[in-house]
């Protein structure tokens, strides 16, 4: 089941590559069909999903791969990964629909995105560190070609910066993985076994160093301050669907690594360093929001709000490491909030970046001051943007609120000082309202004149993302029911 979900897009990508004579329209619709089929498979998996016993995974598949180093082809899902693969499938489908109007090498683009989809799905269901790393690295390679091949502006340079920076992170991660492997007895790369064994428990220096390597690797990908500098140029120069995937899916690989790898496998080191992680989280929240506030480029602004939103997740997982007997409940709420935030941020930011793509497509600029009164000629765009902006700033009734409310409830109960990060919400609200005003209200002027409103493909790609955000905001229960048991397990593992 999981192998099919992971490799169906890859098979379609290879088929597209092998058929150079395929027409552009056929390629685009094949992409949509395959992405929809993959989503259907994920939904089927969700319907059949039953919470596995603590420390185990559902839909497990295991086959020998490199037995010499105890690395196997091991897949499985639990409450942490299932929502993320669902979110990934949704975002890739939205991108496929959005790209129905693409004219620049549509067949290659479809193949590349299907490849990226396979890689992203594979990462979230991998239960072996080497398998995880393989997908982690391939996601970087795929995104490099997306930015370099379909980007605009200074795309080559941004792509290079993105590649070098995140590749550095991935190698730091690999160093950490090898450290875990060597410390485990018997040596293994299997995530389930490593979480059971907790190698390096009792040696705080080695444990701290290995955790540092893993944290740097994940922090670059997430990204958190001070490793975020690759993000704004990469987003600014990436194509719209590239940005949506980058922000929606690829950033989650970093935060997912915290809850999947760092916390269960190195609980002792995680508790020792919890305060550092919390501080990094708070700084990311506040700094990201402040810098976003100063932007005049719409896409850069959304990129910096990603730093801010990822900061909430880091803050929550850090707070989960402050173990005390009476806060287990609160810490579990914080982790649940963190995972919910991953899903919510993916949907909302994916939608916002696709809307930014509409600006670029019509008027070839992201500069907010070039627009004004856009709500007149483009009412649908204005409405969609307003919903996305309110969701992103955490308005109740939308998914962002559910996530951030839980994060703060849990974190403040565990460490009251984390309330400082509430400033971030205020700043985000200010910057989104200001952007809304600058672009959409007032007299229609500048590039807004003659602006064509959203077309059908754009409505049907962005709309579902926002509707899902609304659904999660109103009926969070089905999602939380999946996440909560897994979050409790993580908190219990960190408390060991």
């Amino acid at each position, binding site marked *: 089941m999981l192998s099919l979900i992971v490799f169906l897009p890859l098979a379609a990508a290879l088929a597209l590559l092998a058929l*150079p004579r395929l027409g552009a329209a056929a390629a685009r619709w094949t992409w949509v069909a395959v992405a929809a089929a993959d989503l259907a498979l994920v939904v089927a998996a969700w319907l059949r999903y039953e919470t596995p016993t603590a420390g185990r995974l559902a839909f497990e598949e295991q086959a*020998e*791969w*490199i*037995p*010499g*180093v105890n690395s196997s082809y091991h897949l499985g899902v639990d409450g942490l990964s299932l929502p993320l693969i669902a979110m990934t499938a949704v975002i890739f489908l939205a991108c496929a629909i959005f790209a129905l109007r693409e004219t620049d090498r549509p067949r290659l683009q479809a193949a590349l995105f299907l490849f990226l989809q396979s890689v992203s799905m594979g990462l979230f269901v991998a239960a072996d560190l*080497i398998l995880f*790393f*393989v997908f982690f*690295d*391939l996601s970087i*390679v795929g995104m490099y*070609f997306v930015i*370099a*091949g379909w980007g605009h502006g200074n795309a*080559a340079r941004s792509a*290079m910066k993105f*590649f*070098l920076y995140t*590749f*550095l992170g991935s*190698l*730091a991660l*690999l*160093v950490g993985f*090898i*450290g875990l*492997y*060597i410390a485990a007895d018997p*040596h293994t790369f299997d995530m389930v076994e490593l979480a059971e064994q907790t190698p390096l428990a009792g040696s705080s220096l080695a444990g701290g160093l290995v955790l540092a390597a893993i944290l740097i690797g994940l922090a670059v990908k997430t990204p958190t301050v001070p490793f975020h500098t690759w993000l704004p140029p990469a987003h600014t120069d990436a194509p719209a669907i590239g940005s949506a995937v980058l922000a929606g899916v690829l950033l989650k690989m970093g935060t997912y690594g915290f809850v999947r790898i760092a916390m269960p496998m190195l609980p002792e080191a995680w508790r020792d360093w919890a305060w550092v992680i919390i501080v990094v989280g708070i700084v990311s929240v506040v700094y990201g929001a402040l810098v976003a506030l100063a932007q005049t480029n719409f896409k850069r602004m959304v990129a910096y709000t990603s730093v801010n939103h990822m900061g909430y997740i880091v803050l929550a997982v850090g707070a989960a490491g402050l173990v005390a007997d009476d806060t287990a409940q609160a810490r579990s709420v914080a982790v649940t909030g963190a995972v919910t935030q991953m899903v919510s941020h993916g949907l909302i930011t994916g939608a916002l970046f696709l809307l930014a793509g509409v600006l670029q497509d019509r008027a070839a600029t992201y500069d907010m001051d070039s627009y004004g009164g856009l709500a007149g000629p483009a009412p649908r765009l204005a409405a969609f943007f307003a919903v996305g902006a309110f969701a992103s700033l955490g308005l109740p009734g939308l998914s962002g609120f559910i996530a951030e409310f839980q994060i703060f409830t849990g974190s403040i109960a565990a460490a009251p000082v984390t309330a400082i990060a509430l400033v971030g919400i205020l700043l985000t609200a200010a910057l989104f309202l200001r952007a809304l005003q600058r672009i959409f209200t007032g007299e229609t002027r500048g590039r807004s004149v003659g602006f064509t409103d959203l077309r059908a493909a754009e409505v049907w790609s962005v709309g579902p993302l926002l509707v899902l955000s609304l659904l999660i905001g109103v009926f969070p229960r089905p999602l939380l029911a999946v996440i909560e048991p897994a979050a409790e397990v993580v908190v219990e593992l960190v408390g060991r």
Partner: protein
Amino acid sequence: MAMRPLLLLPEIVLFLGGLAVLVSGSFLPRTRQWVTRVIAAVALVAAAILAVVDLPGPAQPAMEGTFTVDTATGVARIVAALGTLIVLALASDEIAGSPRESETYALLLFSTTGTLVLAGADDLLVVVVGFLLASIPLYGLIGIARTPRGAEAAMKTYLLGALFGILLLLGVTLLYGVSATTSYADLTDRLAEAPQGVVAAGVVAVLGGLMFKAGGVPGHFWVPDAAEGAGGAVAAFLTTVPKIGAMLAAYRLIAMLPDTLAWPLLVAVLAVASMTLGNLAAYWQTDPRRLLGWSTVSQVGYLLVPVAVAGRSDLALPSLLLYLAGYTVTNLAAFAVTTTFPDRRDLDSYRGMGRARPWLGASLVVALLGLVGTPPTVVFAGKLTTTAAAWDGGLAWLAVLVFVNTVISLFYYLRWIAPVYGRVEPPAPTPPGAFVAATWSPTTAVVTAGLSLALGIGAGALWSVFSV
């Protein structure tokens, strides 16, 4: 102890094949020199098949214990023979019908034989024989194109080779002087009791000679020049096949030494120097072959990592073999792209190749990212296991430095990938023109790049063969 010459059958087949190529080439007209290519290919395939048949066996001493036939020797035979076969395919584009076609094939076979002698040597004197047999044909090969750059490169290689050859002999003399034997079987115990200063000097000298053959620091100066000046096929050969023998010889040497001095540290320092220097020097190269030349210097550094922990980690030998096999395939894929367009000697002249020749573009990406060590190519499996071996053998810092260097190396490989997929600026300047490919090289590039991926995904199977 007995001679048991049949154990050396693959080497004998290669050498006789070389002689047959040489003799028949003298009698064949220029238009029918392709016959010698067929003879050479048959000899290589035969050697590889013989090696495969022999492979799953325990270590067997041959030639009175001076040569060992074990898994490592077997793998070296297969990889070297198939590697030279690939070089042959590249050469057929470049030198078919040229005046020195058969001589080139003969020299390739002789040098491969020398590499295999090095790979199995269990005696210092056999190391010397292998060194000479592998090096002397190489001097001829580098200069055989008779270009000014080729002549310079041949001269440089010859002088350095002579110097390091003497150094190697000096080292052997010193070690023999303090131990009265050259056989590895006896050296371990006797060197433990010998004066450590002399042992250290002798080992450093022998290792220096082997580093010349491998193209690593401190014997690396000839590599970039030779890669740039020699013909494409020869460049592919000299940056790939000799390393197989030299690295295994270094491994056997280090594994044999008694635990009296900090040998792992010595090798680790050489490894770090090689990878760092190779990477930094490759940074601003504009000729793709010279860039690959420097990149191979850095690859020697990575190959030395498992050698540093020889005998200290169970992972060391299988990971070395895995890296060697992966490196050979991947490096040949990169060179195959350069021999496809022998006139494009500037990174920028590859602009737009990704669109004009998509399969070649993809092969180049696989080859270059493979050399970086990106999964799922086989070099990734090699890099993963070699660094795990280093960490397991107590050299965690070396593993970290390997990854730091990997990041450094990424930049210059990307410098080549970027134009391949970059936008084509208004009509390309005349010298490169359209991407008209040679006949054999593109197929070779695609096949080797595919092999690099396939071996990476099937690394588990390789590992189980290598760790017997």
